[in-house]
């Protein structure tokens, strides 16, 4: 099938675990789908949801570190208590994003809004856009991504994550279901989309 492969790089990124709010905020080892749809929405300039495009991705980083950050715990009105949290972040993140809509190329060539790996300090750069013709192959390495829970042979942390957020106020998480956070590769016995150039399989999250 025809896919668009976009390579996005950054210096820092952090993907918050939904359950942690104060004290220590660890980062997920790979971005949830909602972050990726957010990134696509920023590039396209309008809310993009799983109905518009199917995505698959492989995400890697060089190391993890912990930052100290001042946060303000808001209460109604003008007041807020300041506090310090430890926030884990990923260094030199690299994302290979696969879309089943090659016509999205123009959005990543000239993104509508500044591209970010999550927060406004995590600036990101689109460094390569390629249109590829990929076939399905069995017995290839799959991983460094998130996978729907229950895939044969896959393992890792289980976490309930949304596929995307609404753009109303307050934002609502949509399509929350359990995912496996795979931070390494494993050999997937079944047929799966395969990128021979990178020698890895891609799990396309079908809507």
């Amino acid at each position, binding site marked *: 099938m025809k896919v668009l492969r976009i390579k996005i790089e950054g210096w820092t990124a952090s993907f918050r675990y939904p359950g942690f709010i104060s004290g220590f905020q660890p980062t997920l080892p790979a971005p949830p789908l909602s972050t990726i749809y957010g990134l696509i929405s920023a590039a396209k300039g309008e809310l993009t949801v799983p109905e518009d495009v199917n995505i698959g991705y492989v995400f890697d980083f060089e190391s993890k570190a912990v930052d100290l950050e001042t946060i*303000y715990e808001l209460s109604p009105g003008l007041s807020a208590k300041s506090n310090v949290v430890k926030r884990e972040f990923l260094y030199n993140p690299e994302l290979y994003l696969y879309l089943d809509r090659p016509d999205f190329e123009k959005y990543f060539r000239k993104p509508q809004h500044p591209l970010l790996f999550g927060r406004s300090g995590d600036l990101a750069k689109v460094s390569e856009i390629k249109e590829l013709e990929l076939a399905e192959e069995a017995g290839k390495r799959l991983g460094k991504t998130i996978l729907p829970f229950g895939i044969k042979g896959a393992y890792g942390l289980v976490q309930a994550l949304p596929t995307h957020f609404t753009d109303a106020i307050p934002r609502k998480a949509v399509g929350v279901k359990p995912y496996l956070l795979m931070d390494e590769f494993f050999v997937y016995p079944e047929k799966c989309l395969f990128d021979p150039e990178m020698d890895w399989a891609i799990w396309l999250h079908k809507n």
Partner: protein
Amino acid sequence: MTHTVNGFMLIDAPHSALNNAGNDSSERTENIVRVKAIRKGKKVYPYVSGQALRYWWRTTLEEKFNWNISPIEREKKIAFTSANPVEYDDDDVFGYMRALKKADGGTVTRLSVLKNSPLVSIVGQVPTDDFGVMARHEGDPVPYEHEFYSTVLKGIFSLDLDNVGVFYKSEKTGYRNMYPELETIAEKNGAEKIEDKWVMSTEVREKRAKDVLKALPYLAGGAKQTSHLTDVSPKLLILAGIDGGNHLFMNLVREEKGEALVDVAALEEVISDYSDILLTDIYIGRRKGFMEDLDPVFKDLTKKYAGNNRKVIYGSINEMVDSFVQTIPGLMR
């Protein structure tokens, strides 16, 4: 597409501890202060968090450019900024969040139009562990330790010109900037209402955008300045106007044999690959004495691209900032 300013800077930190991580509970003594750092394998990359850099930037704008800074009431609890981007320059540029009572408009947020990375060391190293002592009192002296490093830090930023001085009233997180009281203030201050947004006068918008960049040569801040005086103003600065939200200058430096290396080939690649996205020439400012060997290289670049659609302009930091801000009125819409 949105028009943005892409910026890249190098900050020389020859003997510095600009941003510290306090002490870790696992330390052997209770008074070691560590610098903030990223560990990668055996190497340590000191960094300054993005939040700290923004703080320096904001204070510089307040002190050097007389910015009208959103007031902070100091009571028992730390007060919040007023969330009034019409009258306060920093609320406009740095964004805000404020929880108002439902009747006053609910929670309002504004996405920052100025986005910046942390300042990260280009080369990995082992920070120096320094011994200090406090012995001016009677009795036993008190030894303490802190870390410092010698490196060059890299940073990038982007300024979203389309949204400086433009405030939205849409039901979307980051774009619900307005509340009834602020609309009244906006009207009084001559902001124009266009559909669901309020737009400040061109004069105010241009001034704010220009000031953000003009502050760079005067950037000041950082921890431990008393014993590690570091001039944190950028020693190498690259600026360009860009169509869209990509950040083109991320890969301009790399580590080679333990030294920081400015990759001129990567810069040339940006000029050739993104010629359709560049809205201005590329401005390179360098402080004399910093990476002096780049001087002939940049001079050659200006010659090489002299006939090009997008040229390379090279000079001192202040000259380049002053020339670049002249292009802002043409980029703003």
